[in-house]
């Protein structure tokens, strides 16, 4: 049991660190449309969400948002609040969706999560800047669906790695049922 606990703590810390690093790296990759990111760090969040539970994922998300904005120098600025709201909203919705629709796979949940992540961000942007931000919503929405599917696929295959197998997680349960 103790060995399991150590493994758990180590894994969570690594995931948190990975989320931070990926977050910083993808902030340097411009995608042409303002506000659109690849969502690589979200892969980590989703994996934590599935392998562990909602609370661990939320914790890692918080750590990611706080530390990456500290390191990037954007803490307590617009970007920080937008990311924070987006992360919280997307995790809440993913949790609800997973509980209600048990048959949905990672890909579907991840896409919805992505959609609500950007929706949360745009919401904060609208509250801050005014209705002019609504103009950007449709395009960013489409992009979020695409990145959501991508993130979902990556998460699906990464979760199959042995390192995640030893935990009594939902992904394990699904595998056992088949």
């Amino acid at each position, binding site marked *: 049991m103790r060995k399991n606990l150590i493994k758990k703590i180590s894994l969570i810390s690594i995931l948190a660190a990975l989320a931070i690093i990926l977050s910083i790296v993808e902030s340097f990759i411009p995608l042409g449309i303002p506000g659109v990111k690849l969502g690589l760090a979200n892969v980590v969040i989703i994996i934590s969400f599935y392998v562990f539970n909602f609370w661990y994922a939320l914790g890692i998300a918080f750590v990611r948002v706080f530390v990456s904005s500290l390191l990037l120098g954007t803490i307590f600025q617009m970007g920080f609040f937008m990311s924070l709201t987006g992360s919280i909203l997307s995790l809440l919705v993913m949790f609800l969706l997973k509980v209600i629709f048990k048959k949905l*796979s990672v890909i579907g949940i991840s896409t919805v999560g992505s959609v609500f992540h950007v929706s949360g961000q745009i919401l904060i942007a609208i509250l801050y800047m005014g209705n002019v931000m609504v*103009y950007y919503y449709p395009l960013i929405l489409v992009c979020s669906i695409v990145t959501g599917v991508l993130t979902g696929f990556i998460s699906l295959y990464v979760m199959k790695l042995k390192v995640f197998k030893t935990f009594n997680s939902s992904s394990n349960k699904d595998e056992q049922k088949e």
Partner: protein
Amino acid sequence: MFKKYKRDIILISSLLIISLLACLVYFNFNGSSTNLVANITDSNNVVTQINLEKETETEREIIVDGLHQDLKVGVKHNAIRVIYSSCPHQDCVKMGTVSTTNKPIVCLYNKVYIVLISNSDGNDINI
């Protein structure tokens, strides 16, 4: 294998269709390009109105109060653009020259946005 993902496919396709339709609806509103007035909202929420119809073909510069640093905006006949902004991603500058009412220019970092409206009210001529 795809049977397992049937629900996901339904979910994602519907999301995609809705958002693509929203895109089409939004971006098909071509907006007017004549008799334009620019409403520039700066970081102090002060709106400056500039009649772009009365501007000449030569661009002139105006300074707009930005949250972190002032922006340089270029105006000319029925067209406007952000010449300089201190924002990290330069999205507003990259937007280039805007001459239609359906494209706002937003600088989130400096809390400035520019919206063009048409003074025409459906008029064919405006004196």
